[in-house]
Each structure stands twice: as structure tokens, then as C-alpha cells.
């Protein structure tokens, strides 16, 4: 069996086949297999509880004692094998109610949740926000991410990349909704910590108070650990504080969320360098049970061009941003060139502008499309008047007397190179030019500063200079020492660091409680399954992603005020209602297929479900042809499509969106509910040549039987009238 198929689903299939084929001729064996099948099915449906594996084990023990024939023995061996080899996945199906391979459709996580490095249950919190339950939404988020407000402002939002609504119009504005909920919940005093477990007497030392360290500290504290965070900077936040400028992430946002973590009893030692101010031995002596290294990647790479070391106004972006964060308010120069194309380059450029630089230029080797920076960041930079020099390769920083005069560059063209998809910039000979500059900021990347880590002598480092870990457990090669964040991944995102910190917290807990470590990285956990929000198809279609109100450009050029002003409440609630609830609808397309190919009605125009039959998605069009027969609902394995009867109406709903609504009729005899007139007309059309419809009584199935029984004629019935 291939490793990537889900063992739960394949066991279910295996047992179903065995039972159906009749090869299990011993009744006890068959019953045991039927019972195991039932339990496995419940696991695959997310309905299993704590006792399911034990119940399966009991049945297996009974099976061991009863192998009357070869087939039974083979079946037993097969089950034994898969239940021991892949046990972890069975358990994780039960614990997380998720199937990472998507084979168990009902519990496969939504694409947005799968895309999130911290695995946040996005559809759930969106639905809660839609209903104004911001505090509950925050609680759901914080099960996977202790910093929702921070992430709501600065996350790179891989979730939105995967958002299915994007296939219809635009992705849900997932990121900001989180920030809104956090702010509202805090303002309402309803942003609270969960009740932590009682202290367990174990101590953990976290090195680094960046997002990775904070995340790890938070989850450990909740599990009852005494957590001590060592931080060389004078405040918590790490790169959040010193890497991201205040106009994107105000300091109070970080402080408020850090305070929540402190409330759990986590202690912080600021201005304290690990390795000198406090040592491994110190911590060990104190009785520290495990270490978590989240030291980030704070050292900038050199440009490696001439003149780099000759001028004081050549500075790396990380140092620059850190200095600004600490309070330096001097402009780096009048004419600033920033080299690089990532978010850090944009941040450095926009910060320079706000400090009074007259002209700021970003020099980047590739084209605009290839910039790793967020498109919104680039756009905002452009609005603010930042200049961009694309396809520009710096060759030398020129100047005299220690003063920079310009940056010599050469124009590049993009050439496809063997062995890579990414076009490579190649200098065009003869196209040299100079950009006028009195300051040059390099923003071409960072690496991990390993000074102070010498005590962790058994930790392996990668060739890229990052800490090597087992990615399932975030444990280093040194027992009891874990690591995550940029120190492991190299410079990456806040949300990745948060996810890593959370995984490490769990791994530390497993190690200290003697549980075996997982063999593969944990998959996202479905936190709740909240009810659908009912709305009309027209509303679902009409809603569109709101435009983010921005601070006016003049202020943006002159102050560090927050640029994105945020949606108002009405916009937030509406935006959350746009969610398609992909945690429930698996986009299998069966409904469309049944309606179009089997029923021949073709009422469902849900192009987003199916790339193979590209039709436009329009929920409103369902009503034109739909007869509310419910075949789509009957074939929906996840109950995403439902047929409901309420107040004399029959409603077809897809994840709460009312696709069609028709009046139901009632049985003339008993009042039982019957299908709609449209449905009956569909049938009459098909049976038109059999009967001239003399006004027939409308009867339900049971009454029809009863009436025909009463009128039963001694001859074979030919016409019902």
C-alpha cells in the first residue's frame, strides 16, 4: 500500500470488500470484521471518540483467537499490519478529526486551513465573525495561533492564496477579519486566555521572544509548564518589533498580545544574551527540563560588491529597521537606494521615506512580477512615491571621502536557465548606468546569528547555517533541545514561526510525558463545526471584498501612522458571510454531475467546484431550472447540499446559501408534505404520453397505496384515475 493513501480509508475499503465478497465464511470472523469496519467508518467520518482504538484492539484480540481458515488468517494479518504500522494516523484521525490526504472526505480540512502554516481553522472563525461572535472566533484562532491581532495585520496569508472564493471573484479577506475580531474582543474585554492546566513542575527555557518563541511559550504555559524566555532585545516580539515597521504593525498590538502570554505566568528576561548574560549551565542548574531555540535570523548578508565596506552610509536593512524600532529617527540619507525585492526592502524604503529621505529607489535584479514582496506592499510603496529600478544589478557603490555619490548598476535581462523554472537575470553588456545616491541599504536576506549557541554543542547545523530539526517534532539532534522559526527555516514568515513554535510545544510536552513523537508533521485540526449561515443566493453573489481604507498619502510620507485603516464592522460581517465553507463542501462536484448528467436538469452553475467543466459560477441561476428534487443533496456525502422543508417551502441550500426555494404541496388525504408543483410538472412532462392528466388528487406515497388498496379492483390496474 502506498504511503500516501489514507490507511483509515483503505482499511474501510478493504473490510467492505472482504465482507461483501462473502469470503469471510465464519460468522464470528465476519461479525468481528463488520464491527471493526463500523468503528473505522466512524473514524473516517470524524465521529470517533477516545475509546474507538481500544474497541478495535479488543476486537482484534478476539480475532487473534479465532482464525478458522486461511482467509481469516490473511485478513487478520492484513489488519494487524496496518493497525500497527499506521496506528498513528488512525489516532490522529480521531484526535484531529482531519484526514490530511483528503481520502476521508468528510473530515478533510479546507484548503485555507491546509495552507496555513499554523493550521488555523479558518472557515470556523469566519462563520463566528459573521455572526458577531468575535470572542469565540479569537478563541478558535488561538487554539492554533496565540497572536491573532499581529497576524491579522502582517500575515502573508497563504490561506487567501488558496481561498476557493477566489475562483468565483476574489478571496475572502481572511487576514484582516482576524485583526478586527482581535481588536473588538480586546476592546470588549472578551479576549481571554483559556484556563491553563495546573502547574506540572517542569521548567522550559525559551531563547528568543519572537513569534516562534512566544507561540511555544504560550502553548507550554497552557499545558502547565513554567516557561522562562530569554531575549537580548529590550522588548518582546523579535522581528515583529524590529523587522516590521510601525506603520504596518503598531507596537501596542504586539504589546497587548504579549501581555496575554505574560498573564499565563510566562516570564521574560530582556536585554539578556543567551550564552553570555545567562548560560546553558545556569539554566540547567535551575532545573530546566527542555530548551527551545527561536533565535531568528538577524544577520544580514553582505552585498559582495565593490565599495560596500568603504562608506558608513552603506547599511543593512535589518540593522536599519532595528535602529528605527529602538528609536533612531534619522533619515539614512536624502537619496536612498534600497537593494532587494522582498518585504524587507519595501519596509526599508518606506521607512526611509517616512524619516525624510527625498528620493527612495528600490533596485531589484528581476522584474516587478517576480518580486517576493507582497503586491499590496509594492502598490502602497508606489503610491507613496518610491521609485523602482527593475532588472537592475548593482555592481559598485561609488563615492569619495567616505560619502556615497551613486550606485553603479548594469541592466539585466531575464533568461531561462537550465534546471530551473525561475528566469535568471543576466547582465546586458554595455548597459551600465548609475543611480544617484547618498545612502545604500542592502536588503538581500538574513542568516542566523549562532553566537551564544556554543553550549548546544550537539545541535547540528545545516549548510545554510540554520538549525537542523526533525520537522515532525522540531527536536534538534541534541536531546531536550528544540528549535523553530527563522533559526530553522531561514528568513520566513511570522505564521510559519508561530506554527513551528506550537509544534515544538507539543513535542516538548510529549517528550516530557513520555509519549512517542509523531513520525510526520501534524496536520491541521478542525476545531469546531459551526452551523451554516443562511442567506439568499443573490446575497452570496452580490457580496464583494471591501476595499481597504488607507491613510492619506501625505501622512504616509511623513508619519509612522498605520497605513491600513481597517474595515468598519458592517463590512467585516458581510465579508465573513462570503465564505463558501469549504470545511463542509469538499468541491467534489457530485451535485453538479448528478443534476446535469444524471437528471438532465443542469440547474447548478457552480463552476468553482470543477475545473474540468468551466462554467461561470452563479448561485442565482439554480432557481431557473431546479425542481427541488434533492438528488444533489441525496448524493452529497458531506451534507453540504441539503434539502429542507420549512414553513410550507422546500429549500435547496449549499452550505447555507439558499439556491432555490419552492412552495411544497400537501397530501390531500393526510396533509403530509409533497414535492413542489415544479417537481410535479417535471414528472408530468415525462409521463405526458401515458396519461391525460385529469385533475388527479395529490396524495403522498402512503395514501396513494392506501387509496389504491381501497379501490383495488379485481383486475390488473391500468389507469389510476
Amino acid at each position, binding site marked *: 500500500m502506498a504511503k500516501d493513501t489514507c490507511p483509515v480509508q483503505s482499511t474501510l475499503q478493504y473490510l467492505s470488500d472482504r465482507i461483501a465478497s462473502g469470503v469471510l465464511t465464519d460468522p464470528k470472523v465476519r461479525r468481528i470484521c463488520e464491527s471493526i469496519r463500523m468503528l473505522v467508518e466512524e473514524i473516517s467520518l470524524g465521529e470517533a471518540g477516545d475509546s474507538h482504538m481500544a474497541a478495535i484492539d479488543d476486537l482484534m484480540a478476539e480475532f487473534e483467537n479465532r482464525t478458522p481458515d486461511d482467509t481469516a488468517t490473511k485478513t487478520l494479518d492484513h489488519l494487524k499490519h496496518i493497525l500497527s504500522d499506521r496506528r498513528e494516523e488512525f489516532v490522529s484521525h480521531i484526535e484531529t478529526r482531519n484526514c490530511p490526504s483528503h481520502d476521508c472526505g468528510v473530515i478533510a480540512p479546507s484548503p485555507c486551513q491546509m495552507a496555513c502554516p499554523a493550521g488555523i481553522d479558518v472557515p470556523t472563525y469566519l462563520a463566528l465573525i459573521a455572526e458577531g461572535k468575535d470572542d469565540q472566533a479569537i478563541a478558535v484562532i488561538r487554539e492554533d495561533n496565540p497572536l491573532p491581532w499581529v497576524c491579522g495585520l502582517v500575515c502573508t496569508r497563504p490561506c487567501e492564496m488558496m481561498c476557493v472564493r477566489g475562483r468565483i471573484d476574489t478571496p475572502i479577506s481572511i487576514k484582516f477579519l482576524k485583526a478586527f475580531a482581535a481588536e473588538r474582543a480586546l476592546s470588549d474585554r472578551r479576549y481571554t486566555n483559556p484556563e491553563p492546566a495546573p502547574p506540572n513542575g517542569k521548567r522550559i527555557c525559551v531563547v528568543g521572544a519572537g513569534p516562534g518563541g512566544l507561540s511555544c511559550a504560550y502553548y507550554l504555559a497552557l499545558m502547565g509548564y513554567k516557561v522562562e524566555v530569554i531575549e537580548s532585545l529590550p522588548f518582546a516580539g523579535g522581528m515583529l518589533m524590529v523587522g516590521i515597521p510601525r506603520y504596518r504593525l503598531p507596537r501596542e498590538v504586539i504589546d497587548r498580545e504579549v501581555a496575554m502570554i505574560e498573564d499565563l505566568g510566562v516570564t521574560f528576561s530582556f536585554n539578556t544574551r543567551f550564552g553570555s548574560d545567562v548560560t546553558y549551565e545556569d539554566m540547567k542548574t535551575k532545573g530546566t527540563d527542555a530548551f527551545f531555540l527561536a533565535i531568528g535570523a538577524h544577520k544580514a548578508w553582505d552585498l559582495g560588491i565593490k565599495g560596500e565596506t568603504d562608506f558608513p552610509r552603506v547599511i543593512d536593512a535589518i540593522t536599519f529597521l532595528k535602529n528605527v524600532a529602538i528609536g533612531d529617527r534619522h533619515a539614512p540619507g536624502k537619496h536612498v537606494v534600497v537593494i532587494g525585492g522582498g518585504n524587507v526592502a519595501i519596509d526599508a524604503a518606506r521607512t526611509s521615506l517616512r524619516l525624510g529621505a527625498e528620493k527612495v529607489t528600490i533596485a531589484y535584479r528581476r522584474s516587478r512580477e517576480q518580486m517576493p514582496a507582497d503586491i499590496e506592499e509594492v502598490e502602497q510603496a508606489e503610491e507613496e512615491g518610491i521609485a523602482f529600478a527593475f532588472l537592475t544589478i548593482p555592481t559598485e557603490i561609488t563615492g569619495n571621502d567616505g560619502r556615497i555619490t551613486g550606485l553603479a548598476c548594469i541592466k539585466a535581462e531575464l533568461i531561462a536557465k537550465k534546471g530551473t523554472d525561475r528566469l535568471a537575470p543576466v547582465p546586458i553588456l554595455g548597459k551600465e548606468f548609475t543611480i544617484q545616491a547618498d545612502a545604500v541599504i542592502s536588503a538581500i536576506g538574513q542568516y542566523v546569528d549562532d553566537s551564544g549557541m556554543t553550549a548546544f554543542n550537539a545541535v547540528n547545523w545545516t549548510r545554510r547555517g540554520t538549525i537542523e530539526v526533525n520537522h515532525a517534532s522540531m527536536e534538534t539532534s541534541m536531546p531536550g533541545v528544540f528549535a523553530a522559526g527563522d533559526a530553522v527555516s531561514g528568513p520566513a514568515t511570522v505564521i510559519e514561526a508561530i506554527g513551528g513554535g506550537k509544534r515544538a510545544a507539543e513535542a516538548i510536552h510529549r517528550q516530557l510525558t513520555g509519549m512517542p513523537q509523531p513520525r510526520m508533521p501534524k496536520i491541521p485540526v478542525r476545531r469546531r463545526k459551526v452551523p451554516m449561515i443562511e442567506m439568499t443566493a443573490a446575497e452570496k453573489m452580490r457580496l464583494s471584498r471591501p476595499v481597504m481604507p488607507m491613510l492619506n498619502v501625505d501622512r504616509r510620507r511623513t508619519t509612522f501612522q498605520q497605513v491600513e485603516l481597517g474595515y468598519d464592522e458592517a463590512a467585516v460581517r458581510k465579508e465573513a458571510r462570503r465564505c463558501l465553507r469549504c470545511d463542509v463542501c469538499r468541491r467534489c462536484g457530485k451535485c453538479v454531475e448528478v443534476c446535469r448528467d444524471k*437528471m438532465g436538469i443542469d440547474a447548478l452553475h457552480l463552476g468553482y467546484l470543477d475545473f474540468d467543466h468551466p462554467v461561470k459560477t452563479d448561485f442565482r441561476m439554480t432557481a431557473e431550472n431546479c425542481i427541488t*428534487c434533492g438528488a444533489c443533496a441525496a448524493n452529497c456525502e458531506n451534507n453540504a447540499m441539503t434539502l429542507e422543508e420549512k414553513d410550507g417551502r422546500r429549500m435547496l441550500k449549499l452550505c447555507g446559501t439558499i439556491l432555490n426555494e419552492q412552495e411544497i404541496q400537501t397530501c390531500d388525504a393526510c396533509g403530509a408534505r409533497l414535492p413542489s408543483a415544479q417537481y410535479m410538472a417535471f*414528472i408530468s412532462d*415525462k*409521463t405526458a404520453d401515458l396519461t391525460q392528466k385529469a385533475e388527479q388528487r395529490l396524495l403522498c406515497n402512503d395514501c396513494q397505496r392506501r387509496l389504491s388498496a381501497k379501490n383495488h379492483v379485481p383486475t390488473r390496474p391500468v389507469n389510476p384515475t
Partner: protein
Amino acid sequence: MSQYYLFQDSKKCIGCHACEIQCKTNKDLPEGPKPCQIIQVGPKFINNLPKMSFIFMPCFHCENPWCVSACPTGAMQQRASDGIVFVQKDLCVGCKTCVSACPWGAPQWNPDTGKVEKCDYCKDRVDQGLEPACVTTCTTGCLKFGKVEEMTQIRRQRHAESVASLENSSF
């Protein structure tokens, strides 16, 4: 039209529902669907005697079945060889149009599978030369199955017998 006819001698029927149960047993059906059903009419007093009838309601396998015409997927079919109307399960999508189309209430909803169940005269048994399950085990033998022409003969005979039997008979 089906070549077969399922005749119920209602005078001998005691309404015991064995036919319904045997049918469900044979088809392994869950709670709910009843491909055949006994409908009780009465009792009411006629000449001071309480009278009740039990009417056996299977599918009548019409000559031009509404259900077959109504079925959009082709799941509901009529066998060309003998006219038996049956559901081919893998084609059924659960739209229930056959349920609504049938004037006799013959197609039945199976909530477990989301598909329709229906009396098919146990065609698998018929093809083996056996009778439908309900007929084979009917408690009083009041159900008879055969070719249409044989059944009319039985019906005539039963009628003659009942006329000939004593006055005041409940039979």
C-alpha cells in the same frame, strides 16, 4: 406488460405481514422501505359481522409504467423479456420522481442508501425458476404467482368456489 401476475386471495389473507417481512429479509432492507405492503381496510360491521380486508400492495408492473417514464436517469427500467419493472441501483440518484409518479405508491425510499427500492417480483429468484419471496412463504398461501393467463384461471375458479360456498359465509 409483465408476463407475470401476482394474485392475492384476499379471503384467505389474514393480514399477518409475513410477505412484507420476507420481502425485506430477502432484500436486506433497513427500517422504512416496504416494497410490498399489506394495507388493512376496516374492520367495520356488515350485517352484524366485523369485516376487514387486507390488500396486498406490491408493484403492479404496469404495461406503460409511470415510474420508468418519469425516471430521468434510466435507473428505473422494464425488462424487455418479461416486463418486470425494476431499479438498477447504480443509476439511481435518489431524485424520487418515480415515487411521485407512481399512482400506486410502489417505489419506496431507502434512507440508508439514498436510493429507491422497489418490488421486482424478486427477478433473481424468478430467473432461477423460483417464486417471489412473499409468495413462497405466505403464511396462508393466499399469494399466487404465475403467468397472467394462469392467474385469470385461478381468479375465475376462486370466484366460482365462493359463489358455490354456503350462504352467510364470510368467504
